[in-house]
């Protein structure tokens, strides 16, 4: 015998308080005067919505002046008229706003990643980056495959030495081909960071051998975007760079280290690459062995670098190895902490980019 409550509430919310009782009461009175049945409810809902829209748009606050919605709509109309009348000026304003908002979002993203919410890697206090150095430590650079393998084999002050290098992967075979931000990572990469896959597994030592390296781990974003979040994709073959790769795992949500990575493949060295000392393309990270300090690791790395210099003087002359915490400055002349390169790239860059895109779109 009573009208639908939600419709009654809608009407009461939309209508000016000074008219609320009389209007809702009138409509209820008319509702009761109609023949009972479902159509009566439908009629009530329709009329309540009509009244809510009509009277809600005209609603006035207690003080003199126009209602918020009316005022907003007239402001919107005025703004649109000005945009049409002065397109050049409007474009300048829009670009300025977009740049301002984008910059703001980027700066906040950096502060968020560096200060508000630092690393979420497990034991990140023990994580170090091993940089190759030149000119007596004045410049930092990445490491060659052969030097990386030697360091991994001989170092004792650090454990789980792992490396990664760029991989411009192209996903084909489904929908449009897509260029992906990929990285070849050595086994132990995910374990070093304390990252467990959301589905499947990470890479095994066996997959670091040429011919066995046709496996990939997909980022959560790529998995959802291109494969609809289908768990069945794990164990299935996909086409990357025109070759079949088996999906062995899905990374946890938001993990895109390094540099917004969307796909990871195992870093396998062919015999030719294993002896490559001139192509310095790997970033090397490690975890300090229990009880060891960065100074211990640095002392050992200095000895190992001298040994490498003696063995291969033509490519390692004047080169060393620097151990840096991910929080420490990467060089005396550079105030950007190494954490920036890791955390900021993982967390801040994609978020800032999204925020900047949203700002640009909104403005």
């Amino acid at each position, binding site marked *: 015998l*009573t009208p639908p409550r939600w419709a009654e509430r809608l009407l009461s919310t939309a209508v000016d308080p000074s008219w609320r009782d*009389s209007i809702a*009461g009138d409509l209820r009175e008319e509702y*009761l005067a109609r023949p009972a049945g479902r159509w009566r409810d439908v009629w009530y809902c329709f009329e309540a919505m009509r*009244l809510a829209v009509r*009277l809600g748009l005209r609603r006035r606050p207690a003080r003199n002046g126009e209602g918020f919605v009316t005022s907003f709509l007239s402001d919107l109309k005025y703004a649109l008229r000005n945009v049409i009348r002065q397109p050049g000026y409007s474009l300048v304003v829009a670009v300025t706003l977009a740049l301002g908002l984008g910059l703001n979002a980027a700066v906040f993203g950096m502060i968020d990643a560096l200060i508000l919410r630092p690393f979420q890697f497990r034991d990140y206090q023990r994580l170090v980056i091993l940089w190759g150095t030149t000119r007596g430590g004045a410049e930092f650079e990445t490491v060659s495959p052969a030097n990386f393998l030697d360091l991994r084999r001989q170092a004792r002050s650090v454990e789980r030495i792992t490396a990664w290098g760029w991989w411009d992967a192209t996903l084909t075979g489904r929908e449009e081909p897509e260029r992906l931000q990929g990285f070849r990572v050595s086994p132990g990469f995910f374990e070093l960071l304390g990252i467990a896959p959301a589905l499947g597994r990470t890479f095994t030592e066996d997959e670091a051998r040429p011919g066995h390296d046709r496996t990939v781990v997909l980022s959560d974003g790529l998995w959802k975007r291109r494969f609809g979040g289908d768990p069945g994709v794990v164990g299935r073959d996909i086409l990357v760079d025109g070759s079949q790769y088996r999906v062995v795992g899905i990374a946890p949500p938001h993990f895109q280290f390094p540099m917004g990575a969307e796909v990871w493949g195992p870093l396998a060295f062919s015999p030719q690459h294993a002896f490559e000392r001139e192509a310095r393309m790997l970033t090397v990270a490690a975890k300090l062995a229990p009880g060891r300090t960065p100074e211990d690791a640095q002392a050992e790395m200095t000895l190992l670098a001298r040994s490498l210099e003696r063995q291969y003087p033509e490519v390692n002359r004047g080169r060393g190895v620097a151990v840096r915490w991910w929080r420490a400055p990467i060089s005396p002349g550079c105030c950007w902490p190494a954490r920036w390169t890791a955390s900021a790239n993982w967390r801040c860059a994609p978020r800032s980019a999204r925020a900047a895109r949203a700002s640009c779109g909104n403005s």
Partner: protein
Amino acid sequence: MAHTSHLGEFEQMVLLAVLRLRDDAYAVPIREELAQRAGRRIARGALYTTLERLEAKGYLRSTFSEPTAERGGRSRRYFLVTAYGLAALRTSREALRRMYEGLDRLLGENR
């Protein structure tokens, strides 16, 4: 404060309906009166907007009845035409009368 000025056609009709209904002039019968006597089916929202405007101009005054269970514990809002409202109706009627004056034959031919 209110001014005695010309009324729109719909405003005149609403004021006349309120006068006709005397003590029973609230929105529901006002709308029925307009439908039956003037043949105008008007939207509820338009009627409330007009009532509100006429009251704000001082042509109408409203009072509330006791709440009733039939209306879910809500009051009726009854309307009365004020002296300003009556004066405005007279002014509008006089203006119309002057405009119609001398046009009886022409308007009669069109019928």
